[in-house]
């Protein structure tokens, strides 16, 4: 075994380097061991197969829907003798599209070329995607949702009678056309969809004799149906750098985590519970945007987010919010939320939303503000936050945080007023608790110290008492003397000198 390893390290067998197909050219691990030519063939075959599968699926679905529709229409509609025909028949009004398609063939070639150029990182990714598509769980899940939307769509069109049927046909045909256009660039896809909106709404205008509200309602449903169907293939397509931009924006927002309300001059006081409620709701809404499929639903999320922001401002300032208040707050919300796939979502909405909604309506205004917020965040610098460029650099690199400028201060000693002023209520709470804890800690230390000193005192007191006793004992040793013979006059020294008659008589006893 070790021998083999060694051999591989030094000397590689030529056959291992060759294309797996055995065509004699060198293979490449990135192409699953095939040479460029074989890989391309293999890849095209897989693609072709997938396209055919898609077609088959689309046809099947369409047949089902046609059946459903026909049964709804009841007896007055002819028996479904032409379920197979619609693709052909409904293409007729779309001769324009066909024309466009041929026009675009030239462009298509360039996209395909780009696709295979070695520097393009899309090739391996496509491969990933191909690996993913057969996964049954994903396709089934999405088909449940699309089926539901299809059913809703049919139900809605039922109320429109004859024009409804035509809208249905056209939408179906359009989705099939789009299924064949997966190679187009995002802008071209967008153009197709927008052309379709335009053509359909023009036709509806003549149908409904210029009642723009009804047209709008139908167009909303059409948008919902089409975009739910196409979402997978046109959201963040691999022909664009949307994903890279998403990541860049996400990282940028992460790096800006230290930006606070003061720096942006946000007129919102999060100390007020109602306001912080609204702020949280706004954050939730802007994050929720990514989960929607239809551009209009995504816009609705942005609108809801904006309304919460307005509530927060109105509660804080007790006057209606102007754009001067709104934009900084929205920027703050976006920074706090860091919504997933922000750029992809914005691009998706601009490409595939019904333009009338995006350009003039209220939704459009909020969407524009979101675009502004993102643009601002992308090129935000020290000047736009009224900061010293050096401070800005230090904050960006994560060396310090503006909340505690004195890095040596240590966290428990943070002054509560400055801490609470600069941060959210939750952080304030944390700081307060930390203060409390550190206070309790020091008190406990003091108590412990006291106990120890008391213990020491006790010990030394005991010792000193012992010592004293000892000293006294030493000083005054205990002598037990036998009692002297009692002689009353023994103490009298001068007894001897007394004259004989007075000499005391000593009695033994």
């Amino acid at each position, binding site marked *: 075994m070790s021998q083999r390893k060694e051999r591989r390290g030094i000397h590689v067998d030529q056959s291992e380097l060759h294309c797996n197909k055995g065509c004699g050219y060198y293979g490449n691990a990135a192409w699953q061991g095939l040479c460029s030519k074989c890989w391309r063939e293999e890849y095209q075959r897989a693609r072709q197969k997938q396209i055919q599968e898609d077609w088959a699926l689309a046809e099947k679905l369409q047949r089902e829907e046609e059946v459903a529709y026909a049964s709804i229409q009841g007896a007055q509609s002819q028996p479904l003798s032409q379920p197979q025909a619609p693709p052909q028949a409904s293409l007729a009004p779309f001769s324009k599209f066909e024309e466009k398609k041929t026009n675009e063939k030239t462009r298509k070639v360039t996209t395909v070329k780009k696709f295979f150029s070695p520097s393009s990182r899309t090739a391996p990714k496509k491969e990933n995607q191909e690996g993913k598509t057969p996964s049954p769980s994903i396709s089934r899940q999405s088909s449940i949702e699309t089926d539901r939307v299809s059913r809703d769509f049919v139900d809605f069109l039922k109320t429109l009678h004859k024009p409804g049927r035509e809208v249905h046909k056209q939408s179906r045909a359009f989705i099939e056309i789009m299924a064949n256009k997966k190679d187009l660039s995002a*802008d071209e896809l*967008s*153009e197709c969809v*927008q*052309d379709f909106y*335009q053509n359909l*709404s*023009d036709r509806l*205008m*003549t149908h409904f*004799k*210029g009642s*723009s509200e009804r047209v709008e309602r139908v167009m909303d449903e059409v948008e919902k149906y089409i975009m739910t169907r196409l979402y997978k293939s046109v959201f963040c397509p691999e022909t664009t750098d949307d994903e890279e931009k998403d990541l860049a924006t996400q990282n940028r927002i992460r790096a800006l985590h230290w930006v606070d309300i003061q720096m942006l*001059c946000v007129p919102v006081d999060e100390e007020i519970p109602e306001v912080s409620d609204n702020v949280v709701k706004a954050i939730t809404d802007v994050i929720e945007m990514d989960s929607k499929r239809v551009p209009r639903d995504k816009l609705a999320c942005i609108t809801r987010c904006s*309304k919460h922001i*307005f*509530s927060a*401002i*109105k509660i804080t300032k*007790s*006057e*209606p*919010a*102007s*754009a*001067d208040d*709104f*934009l*900084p707050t929205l920027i703050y919300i976006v920074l706090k939320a860091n919504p997933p796939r922000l750029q992809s979502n914005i691009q998706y909405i*601009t*490409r595939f939303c019904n*333009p009338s909604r995006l*350009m*003039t*309506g*209220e939704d459009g*205004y*909020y969407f*524009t503000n979101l*675009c*502004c917020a993102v*643009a*601002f965040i*992308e*090129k935000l*610098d020290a*000047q*736009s936050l009224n900061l010293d460029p050096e401070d800005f650099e230090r904050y960006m690199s994560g060396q310090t945080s503006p909340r505690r400028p004195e890095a040596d201060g240590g966290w428990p000693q943070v002054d509560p007023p400055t801490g609470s002023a600069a941060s959210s209520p939750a952080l304030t709470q944390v700081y307060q608790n930390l203060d409390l804890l550190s206070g309790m800690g020091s008190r406990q230390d003091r108590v412990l110290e006291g106990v120890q000193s008391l213990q020491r005192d006790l010990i030394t007191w005991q010792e000193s008492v012992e010592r004293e006793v000892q000293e006294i004992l030493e000083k005054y040793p205990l002598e037990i003397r036998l009692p002297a013979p009692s002689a009353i006059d023994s103490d009298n020294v001068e007894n001897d000198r007394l004259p004989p008659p007075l000499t005391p008589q000593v009695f033994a006893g």
Partner: protein
Amino acid sequence: MAAGGGAGNKTYSFKVVLLGEGCVGKTSLVLRYCENKFNDKHITTLQASFLTKKLNITGKRVNLAIWDTAGQERFHALGPIYYRDSNGAILVYDITDEDSFQKVKNWVKELRKMLGNEICLCIVGNKVDLEKERHVSVEEAEGYAESVGAKHYHTSAKLNKGIEELFLDLCKRMMETAQAEERAKGNGASQSTTSRRGVQIVDDDPQAATAAGGCCSSA
């Protein structure tokens, strides 16, 4: 062409942007116009940044959408995102503040460069109730407006002076522009595509333009 039923019942939809420095009274102006209120505690609207007004001018219905913009200097570079596709722009300055008039001049230059002559410009000197503290002379302001093909108005949101006239005039001018455009389009064949193109092309451009503007302004 879409209206079908004759020009009489066509509804015009116009987008108007409000531009101007922070404290010139853009919001007061538009609140006075749409709600007829000034610094009122009882203002019911949640916000004053996007307001709409329905008008009937010489028998034609007009839907006006008024877009307020953030006036702070640091948001200046975001302007193009706001004013793309607008039919009219109201550039507000404070007659007591010379700087705010300079800002208006910058905006005019930028708008003309980015949008050409298709946009109707109104230069508005607000706060004429503070006539005594005037720092921008009437002759200078009106002369400048004329030189750039804009109309000049004097207003006071506080006294409700000149505001109705301003918006009415602007609407009439925008209608004229729209009608002229329609006539021009009527001669050309591919009207719907061009109109849609106009809507669509801007999707990506403004951001690029903003980025460029940001570089210049921050230098």
